[in-house]
């Protein structure tokens, strides 16, 4: 089956065997139900073992699954009356980021997110979900608009990173990302960020300065892709698996580091197995966040964001220090 992942192989093989036996009993008189039952029991055990001991690299492969639901999938399931707004009013319309206005439980919100394609054609149009500066500037324009009309902002994060290209540098990729961090810090409305796939570096963070940050169970969030880290640290991109283990990029890792608020559970094997169920899980968390944050004043919202980021970072101090004097 296309889209099956390496670590799931034992499960897939068992399933195949069970199906084969079932077909066989249909066509012959032999009764194999006891064998089938045995295999099914084993499948249950193997599945439990695999999915409960899921490794960071396995999560990376789930987060990158070609059929993993994207921002637009969740928008259509979570919201009504979505109206997409295009363009940064400066240079272009970057389809690697989508955004617009919509209603959630009948109340207006602004929603913005990275957008990957699901096939080659769409991926080319959307630049594989890797934005140029105009994408971030469109996002900021929509955030400012949300602020003017006092709508909460919901950001879906799903990118390998900001696009590393010539044109992107010429138009100020760094400035565009930096400006978003700066301006998002001061937004006078609730901002809720949800990592739904890959959270790649600054390109992800540029939609990620929020009051609440949630991650889907099998999504990742890191300073660089495991491949990138491996090539920088060990000059060998093939050591990505090793890098993934050591970089602490999974939702449970980030929860432990105190960076994210909630881990949103996924269906066994990943969000792509049941998109509707996944949207339901996101909806629950989103509702709770909006209820909590809408009770805060403008000053509290900005202060809450300030404190959230102020608390991130670990350090200690030494007594023995000679100093610059």
């Amino acid at each position: 089956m296309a889209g099956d992942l390496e670590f799931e192989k034992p499960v897939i093989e068992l399933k195949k065997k069970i199906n084969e036996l079932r077909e066989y009993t249909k066509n012959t008189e032999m009764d194999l139900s006891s064998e089938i039952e045995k295999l099914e029991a084993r499948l249950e055990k193997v599945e439990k073992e695999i999915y409960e001991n899921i490794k960071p690299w396995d999560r990376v492969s789930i987060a990158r699954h070609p059929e993993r639901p994207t921002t637009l999938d969740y928008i259509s399931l979570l919201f009504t009356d979505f109206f997409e707004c295009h363009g940064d009013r400066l240079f272009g319309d970057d389809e690697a980021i989508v955004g617009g206005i919509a209603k959630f439980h009948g109340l207006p919100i602004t929603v913005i997110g990275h957008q990957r394609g699901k096939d080659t054609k769409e991926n080319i149009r959307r630049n594989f979900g890797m934005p140029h500066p105009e994408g971030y500037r469109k996002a900021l324009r929509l955030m400012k608009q949300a602020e003017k009309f006092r709508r909460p902002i919901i950001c879906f994060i799903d990118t390998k990173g900001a696009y590393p290209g010539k044109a992107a540098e010429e138009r100020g990729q760094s400035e565009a990302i930096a400006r978003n961090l700066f301006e998002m810090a001061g937004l006078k409305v609730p901002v809720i960020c949800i990592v739904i796939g890959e959270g790649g570096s600054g390109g992800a963070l540029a939609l990620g300065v929020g009051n609440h940050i949630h991650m889907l169970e099998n999504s990742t969030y890191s300073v660089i892709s495991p491949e990138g880290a491996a090539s920088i640290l060990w000059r060998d991109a093939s050591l990505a698996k090793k890098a993934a283990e050591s970089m602490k990029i999974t939702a449970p890792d980030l929860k432990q580091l105190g960076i994210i608020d909630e881990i949103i559970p996924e269906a066994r094997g990943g969000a792509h197995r049941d998109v509707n169920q996944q949207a339901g899980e996101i909806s629950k968390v989103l509702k709770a966040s909006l209820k909590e944050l809408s009770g805060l004043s403008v000053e509290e919202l900005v202060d809450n964001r300030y404190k959230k980021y102020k608390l991130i970072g670990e350090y200690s101090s030494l007594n023995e220090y000679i100093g610059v004097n």
Partner: protein
Amino acid sequence: MLKELFTKTKKKKYATIPSETAKQDVPEGIMTKCPNCKKIMYTKELVKTLKVCFHCGYHHQMNSKERIQSFVDSGSFQELNKGMVSENPLNFPDYEEKLEKDRKKTHLNEAVVTGVAEIGGMGVVLAIMDASFRMGSMGSVVGEKITLAIEKADELKVPFIIFTASGGARMQEGVLSLMQMAKTSVALKRFSDHGGLIISIMTHPTTGGVSASFASLGDYNFAEPGALIGFAGRRIIEQTIREDLPEDFQTAEFLLKHGQLDAVITRQELRDRIISILEIHQPGGSISWQEI
């Protein structure tokens, strides 16, 4: 071979080309010729499709009256400042005569019609520029009427929607025209700071000083398909840079691609999509986030 040659000569020697005048001589009012696909159709039929060519989708120009009829809730439009007319502040030769001629032709006093209306039951203040009066050019009256409309929207706390169609500033009023750009923008800024919603819908053509002021200042900037929108005219740019410009240069679709528009919306969809936006911006009713 030879036979073929002879048979060919038997064909008509001359193609009959209708004279230029005959070509354009489709009786005004009864028939309309689409400038895009050149097909001729009954005007009555064309009006039924909101003046969108049913062969090629070309959006024919709409005057302000047709626009009001097709866009707002029937019977809800109440015109504001309809009596305001231009002076000739610079004593520009022939200006008064030209104004008088257009007044007779269009039955309009000026190139913009403003008023209070309802769309889907929601109150708005509307300004509709009419290109049939002096190419929709902006002089003191256009600037003043639009500014008064914005102030009205501010006073009523309702959204301001403007349909733009203009060749730009009105030459005959010189720098007074130029200053209408600033005047309307200052009014929009105050309205916006009060939380007012601004929707700009650019129609063919929206150029010069109008495109460089209120037309581009919407919270949402939309355009009709194929509309010409730009600051400097195509000929001026070509002469300046000494290059030919791409065919789609300064079309609505070109602007969308270059980040200047939120969306290009067909006339058939326009009313519904604007209603959807207005609904999202309605002041909060009794429900709040605490209750969802």
